């Protein structure tokens, strides 16, 4: 077919991109430990990433808790296991649903915004302007954003989990007359470090992946404004896919250490 890309070229492009991502990651670690540190920009990015996602993540978490409890309750009632509702909901939210759903929301919100911002800075030559003023744009723009995403996503997940459990409590309270104390006692009695630690540790990797992909796509965006759109879009798609891969690896590793 005329004009169709040769599969060999696609494969070559795939390996080229993989190599570029690898070099980008290595450069991130190298620059992150080298002075001077951009503390002010890091704090600014933490505030931007955390604060701007707060409402969306909180809202999603609340609805997630409500829906999960509302949908599970009839089945649990049918089996006479309604007393296990708090622990069942608690474990599923803290271990899996909370981190993954929140990270996916963050991939959409944070990943796309980083990709679009850096992409537009690239095409309007703002990154080049930083470079010619003798400043390291990678350190100022990329390192701070990746670190901020790595630090903020776990906090957003913890907040989302908490709000989600509160949503779940509301359903249990109105449908099963369960008190606040009983509900949370039940949850914490059945939670172990094996539930908490891997679930929290993997969120750092989620944040890192979201920041890294967003920055990579934005920093190397090409072809004008259309390229900026593509950078934002592919940042979300690739980061979302990566989250599931990381989640799968995290479950495998946690299984080895905690014998889940």
């Amino acid at each position: 077919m005329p004009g169709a890309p040769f599969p060999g070229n696609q494969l070559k492009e795939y390996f080229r991109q993989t190599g570029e991502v690898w070099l980008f990651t290595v450069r991130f670690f190298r620059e992150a430990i080298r002075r001077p540190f951009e503390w002010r920009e890091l704090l600014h990015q933490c505030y931007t990433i955390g604060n701007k996602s707060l409402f969306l993540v909180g809202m999603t978490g609340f609805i997630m808790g409500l829906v999960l409890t509302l949908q599970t309750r009839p089945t649990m009632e049918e089996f006479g296991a309604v007393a296990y509702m708090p622990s069942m909901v608690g474990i599923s939210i803290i271990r899996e649903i909370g981190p993954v759903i929140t990270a996916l929301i963050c991939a959409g919100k944070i990943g796309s915004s980083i990709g679009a911002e850096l992409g537009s800075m690239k095409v309007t030559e703002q990154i080049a302007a930083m470079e010619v003023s003798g400043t390291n744009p990678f350190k100022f723009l990329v390192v701070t954003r990746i670190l901020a995403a790595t630090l903020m996503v776990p906090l957003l997940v913890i907040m989302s989990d908490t709000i989600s459990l509160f949503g779940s409590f509301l359903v249990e309270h109105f449908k099963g007359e369960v008190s606040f104390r009983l509900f949370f006692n039940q949850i914490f009695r059945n939670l172990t470090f094996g539930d908490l630690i891997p679930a929290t540790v993997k969120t750092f990797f989620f944040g890192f992946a979201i920041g890294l992909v967003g920055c990579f796509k934005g920093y190397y965006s090409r072809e004008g404004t259309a390229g900026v759109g593509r950078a934002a879009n592919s940042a979300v798609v690739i980061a979302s896919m990566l989250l599931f891969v990381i989640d799968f690896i995290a479950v495998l590793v946690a299984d080895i250490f905690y014998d889940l």
Partner: protein
Amino acid sequence: MEPLIEIKDLYKSFGENRVLNGFKLGLYEGENLVIVGKSGSGKSVLLKCIVRLLEADSGTLKVLGQPIPGLDQYTLDQIRTEVGFLFQGSALYDSMTVRENLEFPLRRHPEKINSQGVETMVLNTLRSVGLAHTIDLMPEELSGGMQRRIALARTLILQPRIILYDEPTSGLDPITSKEIIELMLKVQKEYQASALIITHDMDCARVISNRMIILFDGQNHAEGTYSELSRSSDPVVQAFFK
């Protein structure tokens, strides 16, 4: 006299497309050198090679006596603080106020902060481009001409010895263009910097240049003062003066 910028036999290609084909120039202290060429003739590529935003394929490229290709990052950054670059689209940081735009390079090069302190330096530089009142505005609140002036102020704040202008009047109306040209002359005197100006605005070239080079097919096609070149019978040169 040693040139501030010395270029000999510079070559740069993008794939099969050879953009610079053995170009050469020397920029001397206190000089305003204008390079004229049609669109796509490699003028902007040349400027980007000088500050190593692009790597030249081969040739000699020295800035302030230092060979730019192969220079380590630290020395390159030090040289970059001596070479101001005014981008065609201004390239102001759109998430920062005018004040932050000017403070940005200064805070990263504290050795450039003089006894007046950052705040006074920012204000004085803004005054020299006539826009001190815009200090707390965002770039999006400024007109195209004002953005160009602020970009020039950001270039000047590090007190460079050389200023590279990439199409300083492009996209501006004739009146604003004239104001920018006058401003360039004013700051040139005030800061005593040499300038390398890329343009196809012949009014700009006439007013500001001490010397001109016509860049054609990636090579030096003709060289001389504005009046010398305007009298040339070469059809390529004449095409720029019509």
